[in-house]
């Protein structure tokens, strides 16, 4: 590809070979933009305080989890209300490996993913027979069962007393502060997003999408429904397990209270608000839902200097805002933030000819 003026608008994609055709980003400007964002992300701890980095950690972990749920719900069309519990499986699996077996963290992280994938696959078996609401209730059962097991399997999980985890160690570094943990989360997050992006350019990903769009038609075309549905559950749970392992080692103490159905619902909200069936959507959704209470609180604090007592009113509104946001998105933009962002980009790209 010739080096073009990076500041011109893109007006279409013209490629002359397959290599260019496979690329993620076509114009120079887009590539530069990605490089700039990466640079900003890697330098975040330099210009942002520890507090912002700690928020970034929460956001990063949420992104990995919501990517996982989006693979299942957004791309394969299998609903799951059990992701809070799968998060717990990942956290406890990693915790058991590092705290009780004494193995290093770099083994525990993928192992937690694999164990959660296995558990997720088992709970995914009903998906062959059940669809929609029925499957939702079956995964809700997973949530209840797993929560019960975590609370009562004292030998492995310490039951309701919770489990202390060591700070993760990688290459001799102990990641016990927010900045060092940030880099771990960031790297895992980038790998997770890259994998998800590429997954839907591959045979498996296309099969997932076919199953979502019309599973009967997909089967007629020769897609093994059982295999791909289970695979979607396993892959999705792998992501969530990794997120759980990161979350557990970030908190350093886990108890059944961390993995309730409220967490599952929050992840579903991320996927819906961000955009079902969109990798970027998962990211936007995770950022949005994690930052929503923080931003509302800051706004309340800002106004409270001018209108005293407004804080108590806005605090009460927080849950209502959360619910209203979901409803508004479902009505006006079911494809979520990812779609809104796309529309904005299209508007500027096509301006002044908006057709």
């Amino acid at each position: 590809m010739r080096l073009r003026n990076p500041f011109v608008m893109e007006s279409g994609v013209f490629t002359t070979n397959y290599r260019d055709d496979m690329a993620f980003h076509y114009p120079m400007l887009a590539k530069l933009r990605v490089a700039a964002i990466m640079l900003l992300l890697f330098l975040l701890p330099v210009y942002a305080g520890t507090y912002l980095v700690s928020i970034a950690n929460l956001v990063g972990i949420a992104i990995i989890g919501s990517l996982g749920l989006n693979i299942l719900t957004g791309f394969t069309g299998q609903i799951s209300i059990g992701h809070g519990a799968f998060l717990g499986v990942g956290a406890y699996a990693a915790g058991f490996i590092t705290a009780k077996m004494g193995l290093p963290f770099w083994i525990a992280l993928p192992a937690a993913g694999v164990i959660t994938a296995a558990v997720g696959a088992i709970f995914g078996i009903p998906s062959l027979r059940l669809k929609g609401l029925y499957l939702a209730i079956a995964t809700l059962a997973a949530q209840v069962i797993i929560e019960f097991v975590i609370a009562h399997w004292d030998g492995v999980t310490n039951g309701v007393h919770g489990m202390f985890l060591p700070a993760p160690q990688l290459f001799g570094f102990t990641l016990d502060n927010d900045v060092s943990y940030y880099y771990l989360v960031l790297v895992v997050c980038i790998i997770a997003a890259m994998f998800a992006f590429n997954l839907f350019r591959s045979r498996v990903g296309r099969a997932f999408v076919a199953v979502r769009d019309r599973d009967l038609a997909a089967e007629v075309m020769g897609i093994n429904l059982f295999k791909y549905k289970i695979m979607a559950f396993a892959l999705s749970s792998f992501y969530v397990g990794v997120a759980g392992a990161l979350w557990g080692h970030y908190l350093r103490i886990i108890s059944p209270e961390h993995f309730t159905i409220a967490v599952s619902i929050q992840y579903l909200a991320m996927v819906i608000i961000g955009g079902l069936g969109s990798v970027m959507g998962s990211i936007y959704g995770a950022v949005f839902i994690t930052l929503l209470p923080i931003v509302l609180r800051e706004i309340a604090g800002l106004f409270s200097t001018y209108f005293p007592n407004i804080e108590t009113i806005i605090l009460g509104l927080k849950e209502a805002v959360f619910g209203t946001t979901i409803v508004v998105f479902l009505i006006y933009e079911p494809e979520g933030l990812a779609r809104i962002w796309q529309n904005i980009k299209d508007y500027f790209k096509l301006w002044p000819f908006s057709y």
Partner: protein
Amino acid sequence: MSIRLRFAAVILSLLLVIGLVAGCGGGSTTESADKGDQEKSTPKQEEPAKEENTEPIKLGGIFDITGGTGDVGAPYAEGATAYVKWLNENGGVNGRQIDLEGIDYAYKIPQAVEAYKKLVYQQKAPAILGWGTGDTEAMVPFISKDKIPYISGSLSETLLTVADHPYNFMVAASYSDQARVILKYIKDNAQEEQPKVALIYNDTGFGKSPIADAEAFAKEIGVEIVDKEVVDLKALDATSQLLNMDKAGANYAIIQETSNATATILKDAKKLGLDTKFFGLNWTADEISLKLMGDAAEGYIGVIPFAFPYEDVAGMKDVEEGFALTGKSLDELNQKHIQGWFSAMVMMEGMKRAGDDVTGENIKKGLESMNEFSSGDLAAPVSFSADSHRGSSKVKLYQVTDGQWTPITDWIGYK
């Protein structure tokens, strides 16, 4: 050339403007940091050395106001806020005002973690008042690393192991101690040779917290635990569990729940006509549960670690004064207001004892130097030491007579 010059001038002035804006931005942030201190608005005119001593001290609060336990969490937060207001009116801590920044975390652990980091890393709060069992446990690794003394609303015995929880302090008797006091009371006052006791609890960390300790203590003093029943926190029916308990022959039952489930249990027991005598730990016994239970409450005995607002005790005068500042009178308050007030009071006492250098470590030392700290009977006297953060193991037992909680014991322990 003139064009180039003009261009340079534009660039220069732009830089100047940016610099000015950045400067103002910096100024405004320091100003907003001072805003908590509204009484004295001119700290800038004093000498820098003096300024250091009059600067307000931050205090963090992680409260549940809108979440699952908001019914008791909101009055707790109000109590803590009112105490800080009262303290500021009365000269603050060592001449410095306290700037309490309370954050509502809606009983969600990720939000509690975020709130903690904001308070400690951004606001530089040297101490924190927290709330629930789950989030307090989640803070443990952070508070030990950052050296932040932490007083939680949770009274779970696990928080008392100083080796694992070096910065957690508990201002009242733990759930386990409360259960022990009840068992001791049953043993001392029972007509039966061998009192038979049932434990009713819920399947959470909070519910299970005193169970193992209660069983061990019962064995020690020769009280028989004949039955254990799980009743969900949101249960609207406890008939089957109560029938089971009755079959096991329990004369006494100890309840570890919150108000709602306790009301269910007592109402069902009345409906079934059981003659079991019921005892409840502190979250089962307050104004809310009394209202919910109606006449089923008659004769029920509860553990009360904090005074009721209508009680005539020495410390209540300050409470009245403090809440007058927030526009509330005593008859609008409930017992959880007093608990919040008292928790803040203990923390501030530790800060007072920390002296001029208010760091987490010094506050910890200050708290650990407290010996029989009296609050005018709002709660049992509090003592901490370097190897025990158990503020007290004493509680009062109250019985419901004529629809009112009336004390039947003074501060008693189990030893």
